[in-house]
């Protein structure tokens, strides 16, 4: 479970064009639930995602992770709660690697290396044995039946296949939270519906899922537990799905 207390994030402070992407947001993301951030582009959805996903630190306010043990934090196993607001980047990255799996709007796969390597990439810094990571990557690829592309290059895949490889990459470190930023932006309807199927399977496995999207197919899907509406960096309404 992730709790944000009065979090603000502003950029270019002291420079001529300062702007505040997120204004004093208070939010709690329930565990093993699907939460959707709804709102037009520029409403601070993406910045909020980066704050929750330990990618960036808030200018002010506090973010607290809680749950049975904080994965990726040295000695975090027996900790109930951790304030990650002012952790150095080295530890934020450790938590990000172990706890969060990211799916990007533009998939962000590394061209030039094979699909298998792309999926294994997040596990390189953990120092896990190469063989184990490779075995898990192949399993994930076969789970999303893109295993036949394992050794081909990324730029030869179709949109749907790329998305599934991106999802496989997000799952390589066995994260407990999946963060997706506009996942269905480049997918047609049945691929989007298929994506929601996959999201459903995440929930069944007890993973927390957080999606930022303004695609009605995602927002009105029956699987959504909470919808958070945002505009100009503030939360308008946050309630359970209609």
């Amino acid at each position: 479970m992730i709790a944000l207390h009065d979090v603000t994030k502003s950029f270019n402070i002291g420079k001529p064009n300062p702007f505040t992407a997120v204004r004093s947001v208070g939010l709690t993301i329930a565990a093993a639930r699907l939460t959707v951030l709804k709102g037009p582009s520029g409403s601070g959805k993406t910045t909020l995602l980066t704050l929750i996903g330990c990618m960036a630190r808030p200018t002010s306010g506090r973010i607290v992770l809680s749950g049975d043990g904080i994965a990726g934090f040295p000695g975090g196993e027996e900790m109930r709660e951790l304030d990650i607001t002012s952790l150095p980047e080295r530890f934020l990255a450790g938590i990000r690697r172990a706890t969060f799996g990211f799916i990007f709007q533009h998939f962000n796969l590394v061209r030039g290396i094979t699909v298998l390597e792309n999926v294994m990439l997040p596990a390189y810094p953990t120092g896990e044995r190469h063989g184990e990571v490779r075995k898990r990557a192949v399993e994930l690829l076969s789970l999303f039946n893109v295993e036949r592309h394992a050794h081909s290059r990324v730029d030869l895949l179709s949109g749907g296949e790329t998305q599934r490889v991106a999802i496989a990459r997000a799952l390589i470190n066995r994260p407990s939270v999946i963060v997706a930023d506009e996942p269905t932006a480049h997918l047609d309807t049945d691929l989007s519906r298929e994506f929601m199927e996959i999201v459903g399977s995440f929930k069944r496995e007890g993973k927390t899922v957080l999606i930022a999207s303004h695609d009605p197919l995602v927002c009105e899907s029956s699987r959504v537990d909470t919808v958070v509406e945002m505009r100009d960096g503030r939360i308008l309404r946050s309630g359970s799905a209609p």
Partner: protein
Amino acid sequence: MTLHPAVLALFVASLLTGGMVLYAGWYGARILLQWEIGSGSERQLELERRTYLISTLLSVAFALQLLSLFLFVFTADRLHGMFSGAMCAAGTLNVNGFGYPVLVLKIVTFLLAGLWLVVNHADTRGYDYPLIKAKYALLLAIGPLVLVEGYLQYRYFAGLHPDVITSCCGSLFSQGEKGFGGDLAALPAGPMEVAFFGGMAATIACGIRFHRGGRGGYLFSAASSITFAVAVASMISFICLYIYELPTHHCPFCILQKEYGYVGYVLYIALFGGGVAGMGAGVLMPFRGRGSMARVVPALQRRLTEVTLVLYLLFTLVVSYRILLSPLRLGGGPTP
């Protein structure tokens, strides 16, 4: 004498090290002034990113420092042909007044650099940059030393004129000679052997106790530092005699030469490594309890103690091997 390739290499090394330490020192000072861990302001993020740069710069700088220490001694040894009367590095360093100060400064900066790297390693393990103030204060102490050493090294090599008559290590480190070298050589062999082996045994005992029980950290660090000094002194007073199998040849540099199988390098690397690790464990002692360090420092100290024990044991084994092997029997020696 400054246009010899090896001398140019040393100048390049000390210029780069000096530059890097200056750059790191300047940012270190800025960090010391503007550092507030709590705020998420962009200046704080920028400073945190800067810490990566500084630790990378200083790791490279101090690795360079180690390499240039050995290259310096090796160059001095290589140039002894130019000076009549110099049979090894000792003679070359004695050609003008800057030789030995540069060597001593290089050793001191090397030890301090090792300590900085140990503190830096511990600091990166803590999740709230606990030792950042201590780290950069130490850096501000090392910086000037490195610059002074670079300058003295330049003065040393610039002042090297061939055919200067210099005194060989035989006279520099002989019993009769007054001055630092002579006093070391004059130390009686018998008691020094007892002191050396006793020191080693004490360090290893404290080390094991500290490693297992976690108590007596200061004691262990003190023991290892004192034994470091005793070992350096005993190198000159009796260890060299066994290696050269010559009761009068006290020179600590000749063992670096080919005919003694470069055994000097093994001894010095083991001794310096063990010394730095031992002192490192001691330096970390005051931070044992502080916040995030509580979990990190004991584990790191245990590893440092292991390093010290292994290296000191290696040093003692090589020395005792050479003592038993060599036909020379010093009068008061404990050996049969």
